[in-house]
Structures are given as C-alpha cells and as structure tokens.
C-alpha cells in the first residue's frame, strides 16, 4: 500500500528525534550529523531499527541538513541523501525524505532568493525520489516552506507533509500565524501539515488546537520532550515517555493524524505512544477546507466590506510611470506602505508598462511588499506569466486580477489559480466585449463559475466584477452594473468593482464615486478596488453599513469614522521653526498659501534654500544634531512635494532625454530633484536614477537609453570623488556624452578639474545648459 492510501485510513506513528540519537553514538563536536551515513551506516540503520521496533510506521531519513547550503563542499548532497535512504530502507517501514531549512534568511531580510531556495530543495528532491513521502520540517519562514513544497510537487509525485515550528506567542520565528500557515499550505495542496520542535507537548496544545480546527488535511505533531533546560551546562529534556504518550493521546483525540517526537524523544517515547493510540483501519470524516485570502500575518474573509487599495498602478500616474521606467521601485513601495496605513484589507499591485520588464519588477515588488505591508496582495496584470510569477513569490493566498469570460483567458488563468490556491477576480465580459444588459453579465459570470469548478476551484474563491461604466459616456447602463451585483450577491458569491471609473469625465468625481458606492453596497457589493486615501469614500462605506444593518450597533462606524479634516490652525511660527520642529502639516499648508502669491522657483530660492542653509550651518556648528537634521530634511521635503505637484506639466516631454543621479555614497537628493522638476517643465524627458548610484549603473543606463546629457549631483567633499569616477567611466565608454554637474560643494573651477563639461550653480542654470545642448543642432 502506498503511503497516501495508508494515510487515508490510519493514524500514523512516526519516529522520534534523530539528532539526539546520533549524539549518543559519539558524533564529534560540531561535526555534520549527516556524516554518519557515510562513515558508520550500521549505526544509523540501528537507530532506525530501534524506532521501528518501538512501533514507528515511518522513519525519517537523516537528511535534515543535507542541503547544498548546509553541506557546502564538505559532503556530496547526492551521496548523502542516497545513503540515508538506503539506511532507512533497511527497516521495511515507510521512508520519509526529511528536509529542513536551508539555514539562510530569505530576501529581503536576508540574502536568499526564492529561486535559490527552490533550487536547493529541488536538488534534494531529485536525489531522494526513492523515498515514499517527503517531510519538510522545523520551518519558520512561510516562503521557504512554499519553495520546498513547490520543489517537491514540480519534481516528483511524492506525498508531501510540512511541519513548521511555532513559539509560545503562537507564531513562527518569522512571524507567521497558524491560520495563515494552514490556508497557504492547503492552497498549495499538501498532503498533511502541522507542527514540530521548539516547545513541549503541553505548550503546543493551543497551537495544535488552532490547526486541527482549521485544517482539512491530516495534521502532524512532533513535539519536543519538554522545553530544553540547561542543567550544569548540559541540555536536558524533562518529559518522560509515559507523560509524553498521554499528550500524544490527547493530540490524537483532538484530531491529529500523524504523531511522533522531536528533540529529546527516543524509541521509549515512541513505544509508549504505540501503546496508547489506535492504529487500526478507520474511516475519517473529511472537513471542508477554510478558504480565505491571507498574508503571513493577516487573513481576509470577506464577511465585512473589503477595501482593495488601487494606487500601485502606473496608468494615469506620471510619478509611478517615471520611477518605474528608471528602475526605481521605491515610489511603488511607499504607495504600498501608505495604503497599508490607511486601512486597506488587500493591496493591488499593477506595474503594467510597455517599456519595462514587467515580470522582473513584479517579482521584486512582491518580495518587498510582502514584508513591509501586512495585508495580502492582489497581483494585477494582463499577462498570465506576470500573474504566475507574482503569485509564486507571494507568501500567502493572493488574488489574481483578473480572468474574464473569454475561453482563452480562462484556459490560461485557472490552472495558475488552482496551483497556488489563489482567489480570482472574474470580469463579466467575453469575446464580444462588455454586455449592455445585466442579464448577459450574470450569464457570463455563471459560465466563468462553472469553468472554474471544472478546474477544481471552489466558487468561494471567485470574486465577480460586473464592470463599472462611466456615467458620462454610458449613463443608461450604469444601473446594470448594480443590478448584476444584486443577482450575483443572491447567488452567494463575492463581488468587486473598480468603483471610481463611474465618475470619469465628470466634475467633482469623488461625490459621484461615493454615491455610486452607496448604491453598490446596498445591492450587496462585498469589496471594491478603490483609493483608500479618499476618507469620504471610506466614511460612506461605514455609514452605508450602519444603515443597511451590516454593522451591528454601529460599532465600526463609531470606532473608525473620521472627522472632516480639521482646518490646520495658522501659526505665527517661522518656516525655519516649522521645519526644525518637524511640523509637516503646517509646512504643507504654509507652502500652499505662499504659492498663491509667489512663483514656485522664487519660493524655493528665497525661502526654502535659505532655510536649509541655515539648518546646515547650525548642524556644522554642532548646535543641531543629526536626527534633527534628518527630521528637518524630511519636513522641508513636504514643501518640495507641493511645489513639484504645482510644477508638473502634462506636456509630453520630447525635447531630449537626460539622465540625473546623485552619485555613489551621497544621499542628498533635494537639489537633484529640483533640477529634475524644472527640466521636465521645460519639456525635457528626465530619467531619474535616484541617489547613491553606482558609476556603472549610470553608464549602463546612459548607453541603454542613448542619452546625450547626464546630470550628476554631489554635496559632500567626500563624494565629489565618486563624481569624478563616474565622469571618467562615462567618457571612457562614450566620449560624446556631455556631463553637467551641481551641488553645494562644487565650484566652476573644481568642476573643470574633474572634467565635467558644464557646472550649474542652480536649477535655472541647468535649463540653459540643456537648451544649449539639445536645441542648437
């Protein structure tokens, strides 16, 4: 009987600890535990046999650390794993290929990329195809487990059981909750899941309870024999075999199906368990899986209204477009963090721009966003490859945006959704476009649902978007969207809308948008892709829910509804004081007011720069400290942002392309940003590479974009050196490239010395240079 079949109708008894047993064989201090199968295989076989004699039906191979990362070049992975399996096979029991963590921290916290983790596990799996199952254990990082599971599923047909390690606080060391863990692993289709190590059986009880309550697949528990205690410098475990077996019995009574032991347990523990549990053939009732969207720490169940943040999307957003084109993801990440602070439940990520490597950008964004934003991600792209790449990296259960009623779309999207357990936004349109009537849209929805179900995707994972038309162009059909929502809602399905589309082309868009929201919510809309920074819109949802009796006692309304923005009181404090004290709101209000009667550039020259100079001077005189300087810089940045949005012209820039960067080692970018805005205003296309930029990157980018003019900024004596290096490298690669430079430390003569073509003392001068270069011809 293969293991899968056996597991279906049996409680499975595993083995106990391997490490402690090998220690007992006198393994030298610090030696690799996996060396025993090469040096003393008989001893390893004996350990396995002792377990089987005690009642173990499955033995785990001695390969916990047999990964390329841990063995390095000390021992061959293939030989180590093959020998380990051969030793385990001697017992006649089922053999579990044991995989542990790589021992490296995953990106973006550590250096290990998802693909590297995957490759490492793949190597192990391919060496271990002779096993009966794979046991991935003692894991802390959700994405590392995901990489391991995918490596097993994509390279073998072996059943795979995963086990993570939880701490007293109910989370793993990287902060994963039990709920997110269960949802994510079931989404990937594992054969069993559970916990091992770190805690004794008593302390594990609440976590195991949480998991058995949720999981629909068999649950595994391998506890330590108590918490390790250091007595006379020796680590000892205190839970006796008899006591351990009592707990094991309690676990099985709670619904645990696979039981064994971890650190400190030995054959005696297994023997004791064997005596108290029922291992005979049984029929188990199968639970329905719990289906929710989740990140590593948060789940979203769609019981309450779900706000999906829409702001990471370059369409119609000049700033994001420009930064994405320059290969700078910071603006996107910042948008994500800000939305996270504004009460979103899901974050939509769209980086669809024709002239960038969308897939690569998506991967990098997902990696970072899944760590700096708490909520689950919605991967938004018209390319199925990008959707898959994004979902593959996302530690949790994400949402796909989107599939539609076209056969081609469903054929491409549903297999991806199935593979990663994702939810899917379904647009009610097909080969013939968006139907005019609501009946037709409901029909398409039904077609999509039955297609999804044929792929084994539950209808609970579908979120139907009945498509918003603009009231300015198709006024007659606006209510069809709402009626379709009503019908789909009656069918018990989740719904969503890109709510703000409705007001496109009309004055006071926000008013129309939030009024439409009221209608949609009353019709049963369960989520919206919307701007979470629109407080009025969010308040409208809260208010509507009270009136619809969806918010008992108005609890949420009372708790969350925000007061109208209070007028910031005008203070008589000077700009210098506001900036120094970090009063961002006041600085913003002040700047807006000044712009009523002052030219933006005048404001910069006569107020902002002198203020910065004064602060810089005080810093130099050691009257101000670095944290204060940083706060001042961030605060005055608000004023520059206001000016930027005023100056931004909508004319398509085509007078010529210019690269701008603050050089390596220097993070002062206020001046550079100012120059950039002004140049853009004069119709130049500026590719902004950001701050602290390597010379190589600047050169590479100049060549790639065939740029004639490069602008470099440096504000410190120490970084003028990087500027010189950059110029030298540029001239080496292409002598025809012109360089103009600026920054407070530079002078005309110094710029000549480092071979810059032009020196600019301020932003205005930069425009003259650009004109000279591009307009003479």
């Amino acid at each position, binding site marked *: 009987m293969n293991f899968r079949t056996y597991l279906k109708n049996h409680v499975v008894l595993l083995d106990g600890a391997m490490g402690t047993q090998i220690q007992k064989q006198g393994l030298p201090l610090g030696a690799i535990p996996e060396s025993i199968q090469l040096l003393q295989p008989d001893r390893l076989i004996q350990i396995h046999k002792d377990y089987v004699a005690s009642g173990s039906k499955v033995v785990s191979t001695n390969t916990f650390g047999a990964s390329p990362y841990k063995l390095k070049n000390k021992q061959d992975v293939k030989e180590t794993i093959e020998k380990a399996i051969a030793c385990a096979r001697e017992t006649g029991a089922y053999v579990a290929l044991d995989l542990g963590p790589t021992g490296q921290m995953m990106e973006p916290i550590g250096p290990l990329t998802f693909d590297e983790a995957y490759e490492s596990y793949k190597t192990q799996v391919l060496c271990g195809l002779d096993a009966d199952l794979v046991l991935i254990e003692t894991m802390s990082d959700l994405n590392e487990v995901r990489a391991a599971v995918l490596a097993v599923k994509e390279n073998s047909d072996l059943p795979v059981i995963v086990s993570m390690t939880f701490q007293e606080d109910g989370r793993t060391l990287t902060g994963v909750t039990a709920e997110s863990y269960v949802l994510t692993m079931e989404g990937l289709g594992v054969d069993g899941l559970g916990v091992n190590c770190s805690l004794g059986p008593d302390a594990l009880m609440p976590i195991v309870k949480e998991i058995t309550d949720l999981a629909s697949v068999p649950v595994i528990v391998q506890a330590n024999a108590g918490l390790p205690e250091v007595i006379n410098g020796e680590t000892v475990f205190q839970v006796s075999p008899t006591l351990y077996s009592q707990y094991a019995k309690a676990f099985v009574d709670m619904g645990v199906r696979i039981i064994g032991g971890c650190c400190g347990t030995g054959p005696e523990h297994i023997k004791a368990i064997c005596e108290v549990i029922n291992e005979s053939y049984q029929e188990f009732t199968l639970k329905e899986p719990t289906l929710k969207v989740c990140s590593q720490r948060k789940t979203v169940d769609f019981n309450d209204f779900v706000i999906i943040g829409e702001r990471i999307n370059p369409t119609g957003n000049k700033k994001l477009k420009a930064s994405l084109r320059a290969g700078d993801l910071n603006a996107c990440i910042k948008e994500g963090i800000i939305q996270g602070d504004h009460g979103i439940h899901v974050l939509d990520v769209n980086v669809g721009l024709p002239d960038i490597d969308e897939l690569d950008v998506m991967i990098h964004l997902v990696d970072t966003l899944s*760590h700096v934003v708490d909520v689950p991600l919605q991967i938004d792209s018209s390319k199925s490859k990008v959707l898959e790449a994004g979902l593959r990296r996302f530690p949790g259960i994400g949402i796909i945006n989107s599939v539609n009623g076209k056969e081609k779309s469903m054929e491409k999207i549903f297999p991806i959704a199935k593979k990663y357990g994702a939810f899917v936004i379904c647009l009610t349109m097909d080969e013939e476009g968006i139907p005019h009537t609501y009946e037709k849209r409901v029909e398409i929805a039904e077609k999509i649902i039955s297609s999804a179900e044929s792929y084994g995707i539950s209808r609970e994972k579908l979120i139907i978007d009945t498509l918003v038309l603009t009231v300015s162009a198709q006024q007659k059909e606006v209510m069809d969207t709402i009626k379709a929502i009503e019908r789909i809602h009656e069918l018990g399905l989740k719904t969503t809308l890109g709510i703000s589309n409705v007001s496109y082309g009309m004055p006071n868009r926000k008013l129309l948008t939030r009024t439409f929201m009221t209608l949609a919510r009353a019709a049963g809309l369960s989520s919206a892709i919307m701007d979470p920074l629109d407080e009025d819109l969010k308040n409208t949802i809260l208010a509507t829910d009270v009136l619809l009796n969806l918010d008992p006692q108005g609890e949420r309304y009372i708790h969350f509804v925000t007061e109208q923005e209070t007028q910031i009181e005008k203070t008589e404090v000077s700009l210098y004081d506001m900036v120094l004290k970090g009063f961002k709101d006041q600085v913003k209000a002040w700047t807006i007011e000044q712009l009523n009667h002052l030219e933006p550039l005048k404001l910069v020259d006569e107020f902002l720069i002198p203020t910065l100079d004064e602060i810089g001077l005080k810093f130099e005189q050691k009257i101000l400290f670095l944290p204060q300087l940083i706060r001042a810089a961030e605060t005055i940045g608000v004023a520059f942002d206001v000016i930027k949005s005023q100056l931004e012209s909508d004319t398509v820039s085509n007078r010529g392309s210019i690269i701008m960067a603050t050089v390596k080692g220097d993070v002062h970018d206020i001046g550079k940003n100012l120059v950039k805005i002004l140049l853009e205003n004069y119709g130049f296309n500026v590719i902004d590479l950001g701050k602290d930029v390597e010379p190589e990157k600047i050169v590479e980018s100049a060549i790639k974009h065939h740029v004639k003019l490069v602008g470099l900024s440096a504000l410190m004596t120490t970084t003028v050196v990087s500027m010189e290096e950059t110029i030298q490298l540029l001239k080496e690669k292409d002598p025809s490239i012109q360089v103009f430079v600026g920054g407070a430390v530079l002078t005309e003569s110094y710029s000549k010395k480092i071979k810059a073509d032009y020196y600019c003392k301020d932003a205005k001068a930069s425009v003259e240079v650009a004109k000279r270069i591009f307009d003479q011809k």
Partner: protein
Amino acid sequence: MEIWNWYKSMKDDVYRYLKMQPGVDEDIDKKIEILLTKTDPGRTTYKVFDLIQDPLGIKDFEPFESESLKPILKYADRIILFAATLGVEFDRKVKQLQYHNQLEMMLLDAVGSAKVEALVDEMCEKIKTTLGGYQTPRFSPGYGDFDLAFQEKLLRLIDGHKIGLTVTNSFLLSPSKSITGVIGFSLKPMDVKYNICDDCLRRTTCDKTICRRVK
C-alpha cells in the same frame, strides 16, 4: 542590576549612538521613549563547554586561532558560547521605515543596537544566577583578531537556528540586530584586566563600527 538602572543605561546607549543628549529635543526624546518600551524583547541562547588552555580551544573541538582571546580566557576553565537576536520583526520594521520615515528609522536603529546589548547583559546576569561562578568580559567574533568566520561554527555548536539566527556566506548575522560571542567561565575568581578598546589589537585601525562598545 536593578531594572531602573538597566533601563537607564540602555537609554544612555541610545543617545550615545545618536551622538546627542536627552533634553535637547522633546519630540525626539518622546519617540525614543516609545521605541524603547514598544520593541520586542528578543531571544537568547547559550551553551557551556569545557575549555582547554594549550592550545586554547573548546574541548574536543578545533583550537581558536586568536591572540586577542588569550588574555581574556587565560584563567577560565569553561567557556560559554552565546547568541542573542531581536528577531526578524525588528528588521522588517526598519525596512518599512526606510521608505517613509528616515528619522524614526535612525532612532529605531539606535534603540535596536542598545537593546540587543542590554539583552546580552541580562543573559549574563541570568547565567550568573543559574551557574554561579565568575565570568570574563564577553568577546565577539570580529573584535580584535577573533575571526568573524567563527560565527558560523558557534551557531552550529549552540543550535543558533532555534532562536532564528542565521549567518550569511560572508559571515554576517541575519536578522541584523544580533550578537554572538564567548565568555570565559570559572568557579574561581579570574584576574582578567581587559579594556575593550585600549587593549584591542585593532585599536589603531578600528573605525569603531565593529564593536559597539566605544564609550
């Protein structure tokens, strides 16, 4: 150490890293106060091994190749290997602030450095109450000529992964606010006079970033 003193010395460290004093800026003082009380306490682990003097090393293990360690461990007969970390959550928070709040990132970074040092101090106190005896000053890979590469072996010997600590291929610790090190131990008093900066082999070349103990 009394709780209050312990907290105060941690706070002093924060201001030292920031190169400023309390009382200069109310807003910054308040933020530091909040960060100090809010961040996770972190985790520690350690194991005790027998120490051999000649050549200096852990019993049944390869000898240390470090001159710096000799004066410190000279009178010890056992050695405590330890590791401490504030964990991944701390790094995540710093990462998040990096994108939208430079000031708080800087303050949090200083708070983290002070906290992880204090965490090790606290661990040493605890060891004192469980094991009794006497301890030498602690010494970490990277100080003096004590090779950074020892971090990997150290973590293997004490199962550092159990507190979530890993070491990169270039022997840096991840999560970033972490410390590993050794402490000499004996039941008899040890006459170790080691001034962490003045006696350091690298005192002339040090950029004072390796060991954060510069006073």
